[in-house]
């Protein structure tokens, strides 16, 4: 597939002797939205973290826009400039204001002027629906607001791909939808997204491709209409019945 934004070929990873990722093959095209689900410990977060080079894979190839991910500093810099990441725990910088959280990357890594960076930051704060919180510190905001700031922080780097590692798992239930709404809007605007989540309503709405992982393997993947109504593997059926029964 020539327009593949991200390509994982036979990716393997071990923590010591523990085999966390087993022959992962996954292609994500530009503009595609992939949702990865699976029981905890299945390796789904590790896949996302490998794509961003927060973790090293030991075997196989990861290519981003045709550039192979290696240890070489240039390749890492390329990845970091094209791939944004949203964490479960937000990981905002508590000693900086919201605005400073958003402008730090553009100013220091991209060399934008303060004025340009702040304009951009305000633009993206508007997009995640919290334009009036710019001067506050992250800890003065609710969890949902913090996660939306984190999304805006990633967007300020104008990535081609955005990775989400369980973005709503640390949120109180009433704040989940405000974050998911922002993610749905991003999806509709054509952002390439890889989302690790248990929010199946969100998955049904935006996913082009569903990936189910268990014990370090991709057990099943396919279009959501097939995936939810007619999963082939038993493990996937069991998982879906467990999380969808409520």
């Amino acid at each position, binding site marked *: 597939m020539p327009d593949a934004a991200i390509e994982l070929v036979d990716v393997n990873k071990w923590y010591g002797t523990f085999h966390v990722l087993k022959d992962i093959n996954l292609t994500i095209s530009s503009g595609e939205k992939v949702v990865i689900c699976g029981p905890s410990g299945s390796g789904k977060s590790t896949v996302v973290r490998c794509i961003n080079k*927060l973790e090293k894979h030991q075997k196989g190839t990861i290519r981003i826009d045709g550039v192979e991910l290696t240890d070489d500093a240039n390749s890492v810099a390329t990845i*970091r400039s094209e*791939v944004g990441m949203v964490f479960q725990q937000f*990981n*905002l*910088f508590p*000693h900086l204001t919201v605005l400073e959280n958003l402008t*730090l990357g553009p100013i*220091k890594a991209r060399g934008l002027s303060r004025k340009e960076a702040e304009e951009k930051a305000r633009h993206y704060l508007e997009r995640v629906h919290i334009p009036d919180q710019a001067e506050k510190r992250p800890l003065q905001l609710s969890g949902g607001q913090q996660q939306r700031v984190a999304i805006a922080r990633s967007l*300020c780097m104008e990535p081609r791909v955005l990775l989400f590692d369980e973005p709503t798992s640390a949120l109180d239930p009433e704040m989940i939808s405000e974050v998911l709404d922002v993610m749905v809007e991003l999806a509709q605007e054509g952002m390439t997204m890889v989302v690790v989540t248990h929010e199946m309503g969100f998955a049904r709405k935006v996913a082009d491709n569903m990936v189910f992982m268990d014990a370090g393997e991709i057990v099943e993947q396919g279009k959501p209409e097939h995936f939810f109504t007619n999963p082939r593997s038993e493990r996937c059926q069991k998982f879906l019945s467990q999380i969808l029964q409520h």
Partner: protein
Amino acid sequence: MKKAFLFLPLFLLAAGCSSSQTWGWYVINPTTESGWTNIKFLISGMGATIQISLIAAVLSIVIGLLVALPGLAESRGWRLVNRIYVEFVRSIPLLPMLFWVFYGLPIVFQSMGMNIPIDPFWGAIITLAISDSAFTAEIYRAGIQSIAKGQSEAAQTIGLNYFQTMRYVILPQAIRRILPPLANQFIYVVKMSAFASVIGMQELTRRANELVVTEYRPLEIYTLLVFEYLVLVLIISAGVRWLERRMGADERG
């Protein structure tokens, strides 16, 4: 019971003052001309003590950070460099290290064809800075490690390199946890600077020793010396508390 022990030194002091046979405060009596001259002589060592301690502490803060960073690296080789430095340096008692630097280091320089004399001032500073840096390095390491890993990961994902991550994300957060133990270390440096007297540095302790030799009034002179250090340390403590309050306010605002 504990309180009784607190009063013991005061009692001794009072008893001492009342009997002219054991105490001879005349030696540092500011109302007499010779007493005032002696006091001025003793206090004139203050400048050197402050200079040595301050320069050594600043150097130790810089060296400590440079030593701490490899200790936080992923690579085992870098961590080993940190471990060797810390374990080696902190195992050397200050006095032998002072002798080695003051008497030995110039010979090392000479053998390398360099003629770098080491005077008592810089000998003391180098020794104090190196000796203290092993401890400041450990303080930095603990402080930096106490900042959640997610912070540096987030910094990496917005394109910051290692030094930018340290400078803008990790250290500003770690510094509040690092500052109190670092201040403790500064107090330690001030006190250890007294060792510089043995290589002839004209600081507080040296002045006191010299006056004791001519006046032979060790009790009174060394008592004053103790209070000189006490005043220095109290000033530092007040300064650190002020700094902490200011940073705390900054964090909340």
